[in-house]
């Protein structure tokens, strides 16, 4: 099993619904976030291009955060998701420094927090909160090992990119372009 997510940049309007849905689902304190929107403008008026991306932890197969965690709090879990065990985390911030995607933050209670792909929902057969709420249905989540999953199918059909592939982390967040 290999959980992954694809985000269709052709459909995303950058509304941040994924951000607030994640906050209310996962009790992320106001002022912090596990996912966020990036907007990139290219060109000169009127030859322009605009890309919206909903970004979060890439749940890398080769995760520098897991490798550098001194206590084993950061670890691989079901479907290759990268998770943090709250009570093992000492808040040293090594993982934050090592993440090329800046996907982690220190929770005001002292531990490091990040996207979990909403495993608590996925285990109940639900979609992650961001995927379930998105008004443009621009996000696809599922098991890459299952050729019939939403994410496998859309990745087969469409052109995609990953972010900072040169970091060698083998990210599992795909952006359809």
């Amino acid at each position, binding site marked *: 099993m290999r959980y992954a997510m694809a985000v269709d940049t052709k459909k995303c309007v950058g509304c*941040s619904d994924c951000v607030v849905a994640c906050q209310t689902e996962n009790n992320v304190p106001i002022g912090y976030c596990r996912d966020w929107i990036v907007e990139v403008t290219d060109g000169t008026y009127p030859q322009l291009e605009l890309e919206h991306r909903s970004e979060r932890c890439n749940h890398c197969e080769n995760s520098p955060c897991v490798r550098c965690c001194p206590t084993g709090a950061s670890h691989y879990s079901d479907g290759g998701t990268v998770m943090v065990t709250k009570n093992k985390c000492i808040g040293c911030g090594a993982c934050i420094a090592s993440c090329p995607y800046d996907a982690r933050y220190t929770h005001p209670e002292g531990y490091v927090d990040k996207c979990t792909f909403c495993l608590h929902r996925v285990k109940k057969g639900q979609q992650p909160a961001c995927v379930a*709420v998105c008004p443009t249905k621009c996000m696809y989540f599922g098991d890459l090992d299952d050729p019939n999953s939403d994410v496998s199918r859309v990745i087969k059909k469409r052109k995609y990119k990953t972010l900072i592939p040169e970091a060698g982390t083998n990210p599992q967040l795909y952006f359809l372009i």
Partner: protein
Amino acid sequence: MGKNRRDFIKISALGAAGLVAGTRYLMAQNQIVIPENPKGPWRMPHDLVRTPTYCEVCFWKCAGWTYKNDAGQIQKIIGNDDDPNSNGRFCPRGTGGVGMYYDEDRLQTPRIRVTGDDGKQTFKKATWDEAFDFIQKKLEKVIEEHGPECIALFTHGSGGTYFGNLLKSLGSQNITAPSYAQCRGPREVGFIATFGEGLSSPEPTDIRDSKCMVLIGSHIGENMHNGHVQEMSDAIDKGATIITVDPRFSTAASKSKYWLPIKPSTDLALLMAWIHVLIYEERYDKKYVEQYTFGFEQLKEHVKHMTPEWAYGITTIKPQVIRETAREMSYASPATIVHPGRHVTWYGDDTQRLRAVAILNALLGSWGRRGGFYIPDKAKVPGVPHPPYPKPRRTWRDAMGGKYELADLALANGVCDATIPSATMDCSIKAWIVNGTNLIETLPNRPNTMEAINALDLMVVVDTMPMEITGYADVVLPECTYLERYDSLRVTQHREPTISLRMPAMKPKYDSKPAWWMAKNLAERLGKGEYFPFDSIEEELDYQLKKVGSSLDEMQRIGVKKLPRAYDDLYYKDGEEIEFNTNTGKIELYSTSLEEYGFDPMPKYTAHPEPPAGYYRLIYGRAPMHTFSRTANNPNLTDLMDENTVWVNPKVAKEWGLKNGQEVYLQNQDNVISTFPIKVRVTERIRWDSVYMVHGFGHANKKLSRAFGRGASDSELITNVMMDPIMGGTGMRGNFITFRFNKA
């Protein structure tokens, strides 16, 4: 009456209670929360309890579920899968609606304006009885001295229904929402003049099945009209062609096959040129036009000279692009939507511009066709019987001197004008009830609004938040949020008619109350209790629901109920005989009703003033995470966006030496300077002759702790209003601004 009778009062000055807000209230709230019936029939298989609601953060009113956690706190709000407005997916504002409940700056108790011995005006805390006593006495006096017609209601929210009933029971029809003359009014009138019916809300655009959609200044995706955003995304998936006309590279423009970066204020010329191409290249739907329309030959003659070459000189859009886009519309027709948009009060000739939009749709045969406009249906839900409302002796219209007769709803600005005493009126409006609309930010021409407010004998403001308008009130009534109350049923038009229920997830915080309760109490005090023939709203809702084959109990469990359509078909059948509700019974390309009233029967382009050197046209719009100024203090939504910026083209920035993030003041053509500075966003996404800002920021009430002084208000810079002579809409895009580096 002294000019300063109504000094602005910040709710914060009202007493010590508001000062320690924050954590203290959160704690207090933990103690008083009573988990409501966790074993109720809507208990979910996981740890949360859910209650149905429909959203009040914007007018789309999506239906959903409020989920509570084990501590009895609101955890999240999620869409209801059976709701056609949301399809189970809320937008960021609906999802962040929890912040409306938790906002610690909320209004807490009724307040009455008092003048101290030192002449200083303050708000005094009051009980509901004291507040009602005060309002009752004032209203009785207005009714006795001037008549009940001198009471007006401004409303933008569900609670307004009951205040509307209160006014009607007293004998006043001065009930108005700024969403008409400051927003969609010209569109309704333009479409009524053409098709004999308006669009209402949600607009019955069949985007889901559209093959070509044209957006003119409409920024779907930034305006988060939920169902339309969803369907546009579906249309993108299916490879629909999108054509966006906008001087700004909007989000929608970035998703479009064609972006036409038009010179602002020239849209009507482009529309007429498109009409020209469709007619003279014979690309219109001939059968449809012949069967259903009136005035084709006149139109053909009228647009003869309106060639793409003619329009090029006006719009800066190249002739071949105009032709190519017209052809795209024709290839996809009738599954083409020339989208009517929503906020269309721009240049004062807006009804005519929307007439041109309607005519284009008629030529493409998309009205009543799959992928164009479907035939919506809406449930009929009877109310609890009550005596007929008295007929008012006069309305705001009498103050208009026969102008704007084609307005099909009351004009907020008209009611405002009818409040300012003048020699031509025998009586001006003396009392306002303002429910859920911050007129200070909503109405253009603020000095005019202030003059009206100063002429009032009574202003009652009903709101959840200390918006600017509360500072000018005589009485402030704290409404509880939509998460703490029942309201009238949501009965919306859509492909399938639905009804949906809002019920409280929490007890009202502080001393806040639902609007229905306030209106009913006031009605009883004023001897009109017979118009509110129910003890509680639950009783009224249950009565209504049983009339349509449901019940309050059922709706508490399902939230949304679909009802059967009265008409079988979503679209006209091929060749079906149809009588349109116009003078000729046809779709009027040539409008006989406009002609009757002395207006152009077919749209004509007229040039509008352009910014003088050193000035830029002020264009304003929406951000997906905010609804006007209503959400500007919402803790969850300010976390996503806490201020607006002024978008400036890099060429302009270079000329002025402006840097990204630099703060500037904006000054308009009438020398009005923004109260607060605003940060510059240097971006290629805006034309060099315009600036852009998101509406709803720059709040001046300190009690809005997160919104105060964040960004600038576009509204205060809109002092030039271009009135629509047909229906009284307030065109607001004829204001020009320049930059100032300091205020003095």
